[in-house]
């Protein structure tokens, strides 16, 4: 089973920590909101993805299986 990252755009407040912690899968748009690679996360970035999700002050970033 693969793992994906989802952001809830209603909660996100553009802190940008996620893109710092996981540049492999998250870029920021010109206003600082994350643009997330829609593909599955590779195994070697999973730990960073979890850190990015737990670092989000708005709890807007989630890991999703499937």
């Amino acid at each position, binding site marked *: 089973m693969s793992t994906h990252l989802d952001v*809830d*755009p*209603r909660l996100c407040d553009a802190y940008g920590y996620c893109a710092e912690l996981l540049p492999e899968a998250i870029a920021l*748009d*010109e*206003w*600082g909101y994350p643009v997330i690679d829609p593909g599955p996360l590779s195994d070697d970035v999973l730990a960073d993805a979890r850190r990015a999700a737990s670092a989000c002050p708005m709890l807007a970033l989630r890991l999703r299986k499937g």
Partner: protein
Amino acid sequence: MSALLEEYATRRPVYARLLHGDGGPTLAEHVARYGPLPPVARSTAEMLRVIEASGLTGRGGAGFPSAAKLRSVSRGSRAVVVANGVEGEPASAKDEVLMIRNPHLVLDGVEAAAAVVGAGESYVAVAGESHAVVAALEAASMERADRHPVEIVRVPDRFVSGEESALVRWLNDGRAAPTGRRPFERGVHGRPTLVQNVETLAHLALIVRYGAAWFRSAGTADEPGTALATVLGAVRTPGVVELEIGTTLGEAFDRCGGLTERIQAILVGGYFGTWIAPDLEVALSNEALRPRGASPGARTIVAFPRSVCGLAETARVARYMAGESAGQCGPCVFGLAALADALEVAAQCRGSQDDELDRISQLHAQIARRGACAHPDGTLGFVASALDVFSSEVDAHRSGHCTATRHAPVLRT
């Protein structure tokens, strides 16, 4: 035989299933015209089959099959019905006109839907400033002895207020902002909730009376029935008309007194809709509009006159839509404002606009699919089709002039 069925004993070209008279019929007049509402609760499974066979689809814009929506809620228990009469879009008036002219039929539809899904609680949600609608519904409601009284609720007059999840949230905690959640499992008070457009419910009230074959006697095989449309722009008598699905855009304009001048484009589906070339032979149906990249939406149609600048009008609507963002999602809040900025510059005649056009496509890529509701993507589609249909106007602006001969606003904001 009720008066309506007698009228349809001979097939007539102009359909008036939902709209007739000037409104405010008493309950007695209503029952004389349509006949009484059958006892739906005693045969919900059969009613669901009839609704499915009728091919009724939602008239609020998305066109989702109504039977499937009813089924998804009827699996739950202690459901809630919300009749959606909130036309957030200032160009659309069809739901408002329906509720004023035929409030009992809408309330019949609410009652029938509540019986099908087993709801004990029903609401009709209307835009807060629509005082005539509230008066018509309240007067009609007072006359009725519905098993479950319907509560009429006023929702803030904002574009996003009528969005399904925003409406549920308004009823739950008083904030009319989209949540992105589907209410059929957990909606109002966490209960399974049917949110159905008021026009859809009015059709439903007729289907449970007269059956699927009757409903299908109008419209096309794939898209049966009639539908209300709001026709605006360069027509003699703009307003709301009831059209058989499959009616051409030209016939729709004729029903509104015909065109008053040459048109350069037609907007189909309102501000989440699509600008198309001014082909009067195109039918107002999914089948005919799909190849043109459009869909009927909530059937707001604008005949756009040759004399007005399409680019300037698009910029004005884009600015309005930016202001109507619920303010929750960054790409919508900042993206639509930036889009309106770029369009306003492009609408001025200052020579080359390659920078603005590049900026618009760059914004398009940044905003698309990044909101919790359809507001940003709907606006992007409106703008992209405008740049396509008004491309010669874009070229004219690029070389420093505008072809418009008058500057009266055509699109209501």
